[in-house]
């Protein structure tokens, strides 16, 4: 397990234990972290699992697929740090990272 922190737009933090190999979206939902909806259940069809990753971590992990980049266009307030959390697998490298959430998913 690795400890990671979800940071709400308003600043509230949820530090939780994440299992490597699990998606960030599932990890957030299973730990009742608010701010991620995951409407489509990870089918890459809804863009309601939007989050911002630390730019250094982002460089180290598997980059977003063309389909994810496509769907990210449907997210609100997307930036260069944006990912769809149902497509991001937790790795050991996530230890201590802070994942920021947008003001609103919808």
């Amino acid at each position, binding site marked *: 397990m690795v400890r990671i922190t979800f940071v709400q737009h308003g600043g509230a933090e949820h530090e939780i234990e994440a299992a490597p190999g699990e998606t960030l979206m599932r990890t957030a939902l299973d730990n009742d972290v608010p701010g991620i909806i995951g409407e489509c259940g990870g089918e890459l069809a809804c863009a*309601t699992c939007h989050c911002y990753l630390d730019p250094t971590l982002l460089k180290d992990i598997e980059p977003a697929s063309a389909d994810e980049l496509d769907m990210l266009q449907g997210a609100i307030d997307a930036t260069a740090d944006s990912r769809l959390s149902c497509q991001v697998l937790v790795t050991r490298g996530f230890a201590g990272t802070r994942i920021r959430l947008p003001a609103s998913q*919808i």
Partner: protein
Amino acid sequence: MESARIPAHVPEHLVRDFDIFTFVGEDEDAHRAWHDQVNNGPDLFFTPHSGGFWVINNADLLEAALPDWELFSSAQGIGIPPSPAEIPPMLPIEADDPYHKALRRPLNLALSPKGVVELAKSARELTVGLIDTIAPQGKCEFVHDFSLKMPMELFLRIVDIPSNDREYLIGLANTAIKGTVDQERFRAMGAMNAYLSEWIDRRVALPGTDLMSAIVNMDVDGRPLTKAEQVGYMTTVMLGGLDTVGGMMALTTRHMALNPGHRRYLRNHPDVIPDAIEEILRRYAISTVARYVTRDSTFGGIDLKEGDRIMLPTPLHGVDETRWDNALEVRLDRKPRDHMAFGKGTHRCPGAILARAELRIFLEEWLRRIPDFTIDESRGGVKWETGAVLGLKALPLVWNAS
């Protein structure tokens, strides 16, 4: 019962006389009927009606079947009974992955959170306009005056078609989905296809920024869509957001008419409306879809054969007592997770974000203008609609307009 239609592998004790079109009468509460059925019947049964179908009758089995597209295919039709061959398949709903996923892309983007921000503005404008006309009258027939009109107007805006043809299309759509005679349903579907076909030709010749232009000009597997694909796709997008949203609006309004405590609470706490909508979607889910069994298999302990058809009724999920405690009770703070009102898996409703926005905007604006209202029994009261999409045929309301 037409026992000739019962295949040899179906055990006799699992056969029920179930016809989805006559399952409940128009004066009966359809969800209470599903409540009786799901909490008393076998988890899976077989009906000879509509050409012979298995019917899932348990929340866990429904949740397992919906995402299992490899065992339960949509490509051979999701209609009950299946549409005849001359009707083009409804896309993307009557297709399997990976083709289906490729088809979904323009729709996913158009109905994404960002897309819905814009659509919600239109939805609010239309909603306010209609309610402002209704409110001073002190009464209305909600289905005719609001829930049939609003989703059709919104569809016409999304695809940039003028609203002159609204009444014609509402009539066709109603028969295509709710007609009780198969031939009438298929004829209405044919007329709708012909209507959309003309608009599709215009959007191919001169694409705009509307959803129809995005869909009909898309590429799938590196080729443009065929005409049949374009027509099948636009038909689904049109029908997908009409009866469903209209039905949910009517059932929500009936619930509020019958529960003064709930409507007052939501009027004073509009921030709770999204949670209330989630709970209402659980308790009053409306859609039933069908699938085709792709291989001999055992499901829920029962042997299915390749080629069997099976119904997946989402209305039973929210009223299964093994899944929800006091399932019939609407608790505004229940915050149900994983209700099945929008399905599950690869076919899960792409219109869910828009539908929730339409329902939220509707409740906000209605309760602000018409906070207290009751069902007008003197005008016949509530009439239910049964079939593949539940809803109401009539919901006469009265209130004090002064």
